[in-house]
């Protein structure tokens, strides 16, 4: 399978489920080559959304990480600059569900920065669901059930970068199936 553009696969850890109200606390991203899906680059960071210690402590608890990790994270605007300078040019975004796109878009919007990426995205869940259908779906696929199917181990399910890497490994396998 050869894609038209390189694929930027990302996963986020957030402070809640509402993309309007909640924020991205951690992002992990991998740039995959359009011809062979090999990794061409990566980026991961925690994002420091607040200066208030109590808020950071609460967010650290939600993200299953330490207060220090969040405190040392980059500010949202700094994240946007780093992320969009590392991943520029023609790309197709890929993510585990469309809600992740809304979170990423809102991070840009809250900093009044135009979103630079194409909104036609690869929804990985759709692909995972179709794979499960082909195999006689018994239950809704999740990252854990798929990782188990492919004999992969997720050591820290709360780490967005690790989840992104697992999604990328599953994506490569599913591309062979389609």
């Amino acid at each position, binding site marked *: 399978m050869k894609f038209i553009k390189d694929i930027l696969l990302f996963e986020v850890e957030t402070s809640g489920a509402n993309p309007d109200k909640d924020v991205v606390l951690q992002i992990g991203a991998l740039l995959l080559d359009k011809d062979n899906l090999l990794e061409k680059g990566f980026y991961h960071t925690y994002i420091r959304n607040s200066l208030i210690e109590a808020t950071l402590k609460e967010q650290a608890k939600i993200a299953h990480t330490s207060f220090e990790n969040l405190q040392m994270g980059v500010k949202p605007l700094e994240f946007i600059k780093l992320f969009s300078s590392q991943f520029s040019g023609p790309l197709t975004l890929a993510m585990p569900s469309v809600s992740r796109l809304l979170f990423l878009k809102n991070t840009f919007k809250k900093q009044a920065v135009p979103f630079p990426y194409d909104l036609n995205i690869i929804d990985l869940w759709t692909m995972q669901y179709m794979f499960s259908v082909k195999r006689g779906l018994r239950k809704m696929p999740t990252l854990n059930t798929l990782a188990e199917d492919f004999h992969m181990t997720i050591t820290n399910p709360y780490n967005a970068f690790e989840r992104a890497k697992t999604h990328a490994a599953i994506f490569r396998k599913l*591309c062979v199936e*389609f």
Partner: protein
Amino acid sequence: MFTRDLVIFDVESTGLDVSKHEIIQIAGIRLHKDTLAEVSRFTTYVKPTRWEEQMPAAMEVNKITFDKLEKAPQIAEALKEFETHFPPEEVMLTAYNAPFDTGFFRQSYIQQGRQAPYEYHTFDIWSLAYLYWSSVPHKNNPTKPIGFGLSDMAGLLKIPPAETYHEALADCEIEAEVLRKLLGKLEIRN
């Protein structure tokens, strides 16, 4: 084949910004989970509350004028009707380029002070179309499009063109046909 019936849904809006613009038409077609035959359909216009915020370019695309919306239900009622026609516990939402439609749909619920009662994931036909097209060898596909829309994909799959695109129910019909053809091409359909 699928775990639930699918509801192909589509919205037309007054613009592209979910926090500023509003849904002005919503439509859905329910497809049987095993056969993908149509089970039921629903469409309604929706009366906007901030018509003055409309984006002229968007209105040029959907060609919806205010006289069509004046007597239409407001969004809260339209969503209730949508749920009555497509009970959330029975169906899976499906869209072509899901971020756009899902974004507006879920935002409309949030503005009513509640979460959308549907399954968290939306099945995205665009993703499937892109995967299929990427699996076609380049030499047989010299006109491989970049960022293709619904009408492009319908054309590539040799689906007769709709009389009009960007009419929510007509788009649902084409999306359903695109999905049926894609599943056949990917040898997934029973």
